[in-house]
Structure formats: C-alpha cells, structure tokens
C-alpha cells in the first residue's frame, strides 16, 4: 500500500473520529457533571441532522443549519433537563436510564410524525464541496472541514473548562455538588446550562454528519451505541478520554475495514471489552474536564 493510500485511510479515520468526539464529548460532559447517562443523546444528534435537512431545504443554505440546528437542540436539551430530568437526580441509575430511554422513543416518534419515514439528505455549501490536495491525495474538502470543526470544538471545551469561571463552577460541582451549592454556585442553573451545552454538541455533530449520509430514523440508535462505547473506553466523564476513545475507534474502524473486514462488526465491542478488562474505569476514568 502506498503512503498516499495509507494517509487517505488515516484522514478517513480522523473524520469519523471528530464526529464521534463532538457527540461523545457532550455525552461525557453531561455524565461528568450531572451523573446522568443520557440515552436520548443520540436522538438530539438525529434531530440536528433532520433540522439540517429542513433548514437547507427551506433556505438552500447549509450555514443557517450549522448555526440554528445545534441551538434548536440546545433548547430541546434545556427543556428535557428542566421538565424530565430534574425529578430523577439522585435516583438510582436504572430510573434515569428508563427515563432517558423513554425520551429516546418519544423523540424518535416526534421525528417520525414531523418528517415521515422517507430518507432525507442535505448538501454542504459549494465552497466545501469537491476535493483538495493533501500530500498528493485528493481529499474531500468537507471532510477536512469536519476535522477542523472537531479540533475547534475540542479547544473550545478545553478553554471553557479550564480557563473560565464557568468551567471552574462546572468542575467544582462535578466533584462535590453539596459543597459547590454551599459556596454559592447555583447548581440547578449550572446543570441546565451543562445539559444545554451537551445537547448543543449532539446537535452540532448531527449537522456535521448530515451531508455525509442519508438522514433517517434509527440514526439515533446507531450513534448512541458508538458514543457510549467511546465514552466507556475513554472513561465516563472524561473529555480527554472521549477524545482518545474517538481517535482510537475512528482509526480502528478505518484500518480494520482494510485489513480484517471479516471482524468489522465486532471492532467496537471487542475493543471496549479489552479496555474494560485492563482498565475497568476506562482509559482516563474518574477524571472530569
């Protein structure tokens, strides 16, 4: 295999890693702070993708979707947190899982009622279509755009958590909710904000994925499984863990298809099982932010 082919596979792995990372970072952020495993996180990804279809259909412009669709998901997330999740904080995990599973079914049905069962698509703006030359390889511009957005999101989350007052509040309340409350941090408000940010990231990931695939029902189920695997591999609640998990899984899927396609279906799960055997808390478990 030539270097240029190898590099193309690497870039492919990186593109899917970045979509994974954006959705998984939201999932792990929510878990890290709220201790909620949100099964409906993938549904927000799907909602983001469907709004990308609708907004590009209406306005013929992907940029509107890139700005508006994640915000719509954030608002949906805020509503979800305020109405449904508030009452289950502190209840055992099975209750939370049941609730978020219910929300997942509910959102899937809402999407079905609004958009029907037909397959939908969205196209990227002209400036991002076509290919560009990277190290002698012609590579799709849009995929490069996804990689760049992924990196920007990573930097944004890092700055948010480590350099801002808001980030300090997040870290404080994720390590001890009671004390944070006592120190005057408005924890309920903070929870809503974090959930909103997580939902925004899920929506953003959906927008970015939309031009790369058919937009359809069941997108939620597939992505939530991948996102969960990444979060578990990286360590629940750890953003750097989500990044590492995404990068590993992205490359594993990409090169695995090339070398051992027979086992493609099992990659994610075998890898997750191995990590859990070696490090039950995931690669960077227990560290938040």
């Amino acid at each position, binding site marked *: 295999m030539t270097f240029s082919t190898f590099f193309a596979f690497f870039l492919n792995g990186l593109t899917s890693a970045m979509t994974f990372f954006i959705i998984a970072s939201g999932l792990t952020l929510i878990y890290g702070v709220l201790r909620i495993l949100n099964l409906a996180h993938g549904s927000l990804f799907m909602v983001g993708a469907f709004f990308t279809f609708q907004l590009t259909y209406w306005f013929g412009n992907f940029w509107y979707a890139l700005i508006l669709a994640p915000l719509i998901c954030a608002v949906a997330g805020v509503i979800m947190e305020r109405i449904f999740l508030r009452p289950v904080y502190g209840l055992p995990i099975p209750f939370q899982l049941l609730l978020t599973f219910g929300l997942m079914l509910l959102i899937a049905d809402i999407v*079905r009622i609004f*958009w029907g069962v*037909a397959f939908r*698509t969205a196209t990227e703006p002209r400036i991002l279509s076509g*290919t560009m030359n990277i190290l002698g390889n012609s590579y799709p511009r849009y995929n490069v755009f996804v990689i760049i957005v992924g990196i920007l999101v990573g930097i944004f989350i890092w700055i948010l958590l480590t350099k801002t007052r808001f980030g300090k509040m997040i870290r404080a309340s994720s390590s001890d909710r009671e004390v944070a409350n006592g120190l005057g941090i408005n924890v309920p408000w903070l929870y809503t904000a974090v959930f909103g940010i997580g939902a925004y990231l899920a929506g953003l990931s959906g927008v970015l994925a939309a031009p790369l695939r058919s937009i*359809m*029902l069941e997108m939620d189920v597939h992505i939530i499984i991948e996102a969960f695997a990444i979060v578990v591999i990286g360590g629940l609640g750890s953003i750097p863990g989500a990044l590492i998990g995404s990068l590993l899984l992205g490359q594993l899927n990409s090169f695995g298809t090339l070398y051992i396609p027979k086992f493609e279906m099992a990659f994610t799960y075998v890898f997750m099982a191995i990590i859990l055997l070696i490090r039950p808390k995931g690669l960077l478990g227990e560290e938040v932010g």
Partner: protein
Amino acid sequence: MVKKVSRRQFLKGAGAIGVGIVGGPLLQGLTRGPSGAWGAAKPIKFGGIYSLSGVVAAWGKAAQQGAMMAAMEINQTGGILKRPVEVRFEDDACNPEIGVRKTRRLVLEWGADFLHGFNHSGVALAAVPTLPELKRMLLVPCAAATQVTTEAFNKYVFRPHANCYQSGAAGAVAAAKLPYKKWTVIGPDYSYGWDSWGGFIGNLVKRKPDVEVMNTQAWPKFGAGDFTSYILKVIEAKPDAVYSSLWGGDFITFLKQAKRYGFFEKVGTCVTEAGLALDAFYALATGGGKESEIPEGLWTAAHGYWFEHPKTERNKKWVDKFVSMYGEYPHIVAHDAYGIMYTYKKAIEKAKSIETDAVIEVMETMEFETPGYKRKFRKEDHSAFTGVPYGRTVKAPELTGIAMNLVDISDAEIIEPIEDVLERRTKKTPAPWMQYVIKG
C-alpha cells in the same frame, strides 16, 4: 376523477414537514369497513407485515400505500366473493424476531385469512418457516433473497416479483453489453446482499466468460452509517466496474460518500439492482427538485419497477391515480403490494373459497397482473415469470418532474432453471453463486 399533481405540488409534499401523517385517515376509513348490507358480510382479513419503522421504513410505507389503495378499490367495487376486505399492517421494525412475532399475532389474535409482507430478506427468512404451522399463505412483494423460495420454501410462500437471481440475470444482460471486465462489489453482509451480487455476477460470467471477479470485495454491515473505508478500498483495487447491492438509506449514504472520492469517475460504471429505487431518487433530489446528486450513467432495476415504464395506458392511469391519492410517485413496493391484493382477489374468486389449500392450488399456476406487468407463477417454487426492467440514469427533469430519470429501460425475463432450484432445495447445498462472495 383522477387529478394530476403538478410538479410544484409534488415537490412541496416531498420536502414539507408533516408528510409522515399522510395515509392515516385512509387507513382508518378502511379498518372501519363499509356500511350497508354487504358490509354485514364477514370481511376477509389481509394482514401485512412490513418495516414501518427502522432504517427502511420508507419501503414499508410504500407497501402500505399500495395495499391500501388496492383494498379501497376492491371494497368500492364489491369486495371479494361479495365480502368486504379488511386490512391491517404490523411493523417488523426490520428485526427477524419481531417479524415472526407479528406474523403470529396477525393470524392468532387478529385472525388474518391471508398474509403479505416483508421488506428485509433476513426478516422474511425468519418468518417463512412459521407459515405451515399457521396454515396461512404469504405473498412477498419486496424481500428478494432467492432462499425464500428455494432452501426455505414451503407451499404457503409465493413471490409475485423477481428474486435476486432474476434481477441479477437481467442486470447481467445489460452489463454484458458494457466493455468492462474486472468487476467487484460493495453490498450489505446478509442474504440479500450476497444473492443479489451472486445472481448478477454468476449470470454475467456465463454471458461473458472473460469477466474477472475480483477478490477485493466490500461487505459492510446493513445500516452502517459510514462506508468511506470500503469505498477507498474498492477504489484502491482499481476495478473496471462495481456492482452494489446496498439499498435504502445505505445506498444513499454510500452514494453521497462515494461521490466525494470521485468514485463514479474512477470506476467505469456502477450497477445497483435496488439501490436506486424511487426512495433514493426522491432523497437525492436537490435544488427544490431541479437537480439531483445522482450521477448520470448508473444502471439500476429500481428493484423491479420504475413508474415511467412500461409506457402502457394501464400503467399510466394507475400512476396518475396513485399520485392523486398520495402526492408522490409509486415506489416499486407500492406497485407490487397493490398487485398482491388483486392477485389474492383473482385466486380467491377462482377458488370460490378462502380456504388456504384451495387458494394455493389455484394460485400455483395462475397468471396475474400488476399495473406494470403480466406475470405467472411457477408451480414448483412459487416464483414468478416476470420481466425485470434495467435502465440507466439520466438528468431529465422535463420527463417526470424529478431531476433524474431512468432511460433505455428494457425488460429481461430470466428465471433460474427449476432443476437447479429443486436440487438446491433437496440437497440444501449453498447457491452456486456463493463462490463469488469473497470476504476477507
């Protein structure tokens, strides 16, 4: 009175929020049943099991549209044996286990007299073995894996449309005229994916012995959201031409991703039996329906029916009526599910009975019609002699009101020799074309 839907109206429907609810009121009207004296007669119950949710729900919805339209017409014109028909649909969620459960439920709880169903061959193959115990017939309008009427055959199952062998053979007729020698495949890793490729390439090799079947093949899982690594792998192997047995959302995803890598310029051509059924033409329309993401020059059977073909008065009228009812063109599965209701009607009326065995006996050798085709069942395996259309994509917005159309469509009527089918059924040997399915 048939009302033609304008291009503008049609596109409005295709893009608007709320299309999911279309058909709901129709269904209610049907299940309520007609009033009056003949309405007092005990209805004949037709149960349909399709993927109404999940990754190929669009195909399930199409079946519902077709079967409902036929049931309404039948009821408006006096029913079957002067009895009204009643229809019910169950959702198999594209899951074999659920498919089996829903099949049983339709018969045991609802009391279905006749069954039709299945979009996904994996689900169909799971449900077919339950038919002898339920003692109910099943007509399969969509799932196309050959196994349904060979290895898994029992006397209750009928396939009124082309199976993978037939559509593969029809594809081979078209492909044999093309100058390409090195062929490979990208297809979903399950029965339909293998049979569709095998039916195609096995027949192509017979027609054109210098064809080379490449060892590098791509078999992603059904419903995978990312095919890019497989696409790169296929491009890297430098085939002359590629067959794709991906279908539904999978083919749409594949096409979008493949285009980015210049796939369709790098390979000579791409042939897909079901990938470019009507759902894909709708989904890949852009610019308000004036353009399409589908490249020109792809070959497809649209899974066995393209609404502009054949250009008969009967087909045209039916398409117009369908469009006026649903605001969209009929999908292959709508066409075949519609045909199924009339096939049942004809057989029941000939048998003068709704007794399963009597209807089977009549249907086994019966000729029947769909809006597009005249077909006949083959007694031994209950598959149908039928033409399979293969055509080439071309930009032609003026023809159909969607940016992309199929042209040069020709129907090939090729069926697997019955000796081969019977031998495979008795010996339970794998189909000979499985030698061309190379995973590794």
